[in-house]
Every structure is written in C-alpha cells, then in structure tokens.
C-alpha cells in the first residue's frame, strides 16, 4: 500500500536505479566495473558496446538472473537483494526477452503466454486466455494461438516471447539482443513490436546492435566497454555529437 502511494506521487523518481554495480565472473575480467545508470519511467534506454563489454550482464543483473557482487539495484522502489521475496517481486514487474527466445517447447503458444499469468498472477484460465488473445493480436500472431514453438519462424517465436513477457503487465521490459538470432528479413517484424511498445510509454532497456532502431526509438544511449560507461547521452546528441573519441571510433565502425 505504502509502495503504491509512493510510486503514484513520485513519477519523476527513476524506476530503475543501478549504482556502483560490480560483477566479476570467476577467472575473468570484471563484467561490470562500478557501473551506474538510472532509467526514468517511460524512458527507452539503449545499451550499446562491443561484445563482452557487459551489456547483457547488466540486463541479467537487473532481474536477478545474475547476482551482483556489490552495488545497489532498486526497481520501482523494491531493492533487489538476497531476499527471495523481493527478487520474485521484481521479476514479476520486469519482463525479459532473450536472444534465443527461450519459449517453452512443450507448450502451445497459448500455454506459453498463459502459464505465468495463471501461476504468478493467479488468474483463471479464462481470464488469462482473454489477455493472451489480446496480446497475440497486438504482436500480429492471433492465428498461431494453437501452434507450437517449433512450428513458428524465429521472428514469430520472438514475438510470442514478447507477448509472454507482456502478459504479466510488467513495468519495465528488458531486451537482450532480441533480434541478434534472427534472419535479416525477420528483424523488422520484431523491431516493429518493440517500437509500438515504446510509443505506448513502456519503460525499456534495450541491448541491441540495431543502430537504426536505437536512433529512432530510444531516448538515451549508453555506450559501455569493459564493464564501464564510456558515454551516456540523449540519443540525438549521442549519434550527432559524441563527446568521447572511443565513442566516435565505435560509431564509425558500426555505422
């Protein structure tokens, strides 16, 4: 109750607060090295950087798939800590879309999207199915509701995965290279869904190599390397007037 009042009155409070994150995988260089970033409600933040720079690790720490070694993460006023309850609560507010879709192969499309609604949100099957039908219509896959993941193309699978994540009505959506495993002709359909989401005001953190998408849709871009922020700037500024030499290098290579 208290949390809700807090959230309602304080719209300017960042929904994601990540401070001084450190994550070290045993036997390798730090994946996150004193990494701090904040995301406002409704903001679309794109994270770019060379591979191995810690982008995915950052996303995975945000919903507790990886535990940070030190630092602080607060999402929608809930601290992400060792407390299992908080971790589950955060995961229910944060949807995640993976590079490799990770649909449940033994469940139909309907069951994939229904499952967490019934288990986590305690919805009846009927309620869940109604929401699923809406979500599938939104991602343009109403006709696939009875199908199974292995009957779908990569792009379709990823759109189902987005619908599945949205089914919990999350406050934040994380996209971990959502289009990297797709054939080129399918990237567009997934980016379109993501663009729609952004237009609807969803708070999004997007790790991507799609610079066109970043430039068009995002509000802010973070460029990271070796677990640190090299440059964080509003999107326009980032692409037109990057402050750092390293950022200019990077943009030259990929644009």
């Amino acid at each position, binding site marked *: 109750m208290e949390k809700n009042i807090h959230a309602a009155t304080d719209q300017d409070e960042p929904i994601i607060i990540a401070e001084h994150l450190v994550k070290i995988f045993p036997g390798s260089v730090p994946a996150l090295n004193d990494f701090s970033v904040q995301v406002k409600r409704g903001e679309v933040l794109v994270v770019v950087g060379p591979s191995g720079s810690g982008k995915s690790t950052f996303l995975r720490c945000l919903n507790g798939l990886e535990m940070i070694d030190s630092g602080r993460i607060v999402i929608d006023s809930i601290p992400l800590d060792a407390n299992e309850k908080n971790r589950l609560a955060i995961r229910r507010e944060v949807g*995640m879309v*993976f590079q490799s879709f*990770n649909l*449940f192969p033994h469940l139909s499309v309907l069951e994939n999207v229904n*499952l967490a609604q019934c288990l986590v949100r305690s919805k009846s099957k009927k309620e869940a199915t109604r929401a699923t039908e809406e979500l599938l219509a939104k991602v343009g896959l109403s006709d696939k509701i009875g199908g199974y993941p292995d009957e779908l193309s990569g792009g379709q699978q990823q759109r189902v995965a987005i619908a599945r*994540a949205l089914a919990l009505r999350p406050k934040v959506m994380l996209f971990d290279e959502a289009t990297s495993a797709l054939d080129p002709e399918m990237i567009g359909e997934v980016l379109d869904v993501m663009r729609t989401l952004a237009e609807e005001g969803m708070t999004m953190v997007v790790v991507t190599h799609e610079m066109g998408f970043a430039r068009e849709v995002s509000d802010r871009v973070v460029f990271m390397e070796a677990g640190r922020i090299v440059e964080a700037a509003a999107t326009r500024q980032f692409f037109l007037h990057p402050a750092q030499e390293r950022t200019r290098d990077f943009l030259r290579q990929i644009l």
Partner: protein
Amino acid sequence: MSLRFPSFSSIRDSSLFVLTLAGVGWLVLRGGEQLGYNWHWRQIPRYLFTYTDGQFIPGPLLQGLMVTLEITAVSLVFAACIGLVTALLRLSNSTVGRWLARVYLEVIRNTPLLVQIFFLYFVMAPIFDIGRTATAILALSLFEGAYASEIFRAGIQSIHRGQWEASHSLGLSRYQAYRWIILPQAVRRILPPLTSQAVSLIKDSALVSTIAVYDLTMAGRVIIAETFLTFELWFTVAAIYLLLTLTLSALANALERRFPRIT
C-alpha cells in the same frame, strides 16, 4: 525400390541370424544328448497352469510371476520417487541435501545388491520388524533408485539453461519451474534410459529369491528341487523373464510416441 524389397544384404543378415540361432539350439540339444539328458517338456505346462473342470488354476510358475510382477511394479514406483528426490537434492542449493544424496549414491552403487538384500533382511528387518516382501521391495527400490536418480539428474541437466532463465524471468519459483517447465521436458528424454533401468529391475528382482520370497526364480528353484527338470525349467523361467522385459520395452516405445511434442 529399396523400401519395397528387402535388399540382398538384409536377406543375408537375416539368414545369418537364423543360422546362428539354429546353431546355438543344436549345440544345446547335442550337449543335452551327450549328458544323457532326457527332455520332458510335456511336464512343464502344468507348472504354468492347469485347466480342470473348466477352471483355470495358475501353477507355481505363474504364481511366482505374479509375485515378481508385484514386487517389480511397487519397487519401480518407489525407485522413481527416490530417484527424483535424490536428483533434486543433488541439484539443490542445500549442502546437507547434496551430501546426503552423494553418500546414498556412493554406498548403493559401490556395494553388491545381494549384500544389500542380506543386510536389509538380516540386520534391518528384525530391528524395524518388516516382512520379507517388504524387505525385498525396500532393497530393490533403494538399489534402482540410486541409478534412476542419475538418469533423472542427467535428464534435468540436459534441459537448456534458457528454459530456467525464461521461467525465472517470468517470476516462477524454483518449484513452479521444475513442475511446469523443466520436468515435463526432462521426462521425455528420461523415458528410454528409465525403461532400461526398469528392465534391470525386473532382472535384479530374481535376487530376492535368496531371502525366500516366492518370486518366479524361487518357484523355478523349488520345482527343480522336486522334479530335476533343470533344463526345461530354467529355459521356461528365462523365457518368461524375456517376455516380460520385451513387453515393457514395447510399452515404453508406445508411451514415447504419445508425446511427440517434447524433444
């Protein structure tokens, strides 16, 4: 073409197979002759069953088979439960749980089943006042459970990490992830090795005859002691076991075809 007509090599293979079988059969017959063994196959059927006055009366072999079936079926259920729990313990975050599972596995897998049966029957059964059949079931369940747990563990671990991550990211608890996502997928992969474990269980169950449980093997031994129909009875007993295990394999195959979705 090649689909419709058996190819030359498959005809040759089949003939070789039949020839080998015939050769082995001939050797056994010749061996029997040289021993001066008199075959009395005619006496065997009445040990299986008799049919008098229109009434079907199961003979000692069939009664023994029923005991074997009962012991095996109950042990199979228990072994599967023990196996699953042990596998989950081994994969859990609890140090105590992992160690318990490890100790159980090492002890069971590194001692002979016969010794385990004797230990339970002569040491544990008097202490806890459990009967012969119960002891037999306990011994078989514990023994096969250890192997089943390794099968479960391998099956669970073969499920891609992404399935766990997707479950977690949707806010599913560990239990919910196991129940709805991981185990349903693992079971399909586990079914074939679990079937061969069940076949082992049927065969290993013959050892409970050592503690005077009247299973199929025991029935065979008793009849042989009375009649000296050694060859005929062991052939018959072996054939019945074979029938049992082959049926089980066929059943598992049919079962597997029922879940084509999970790969």
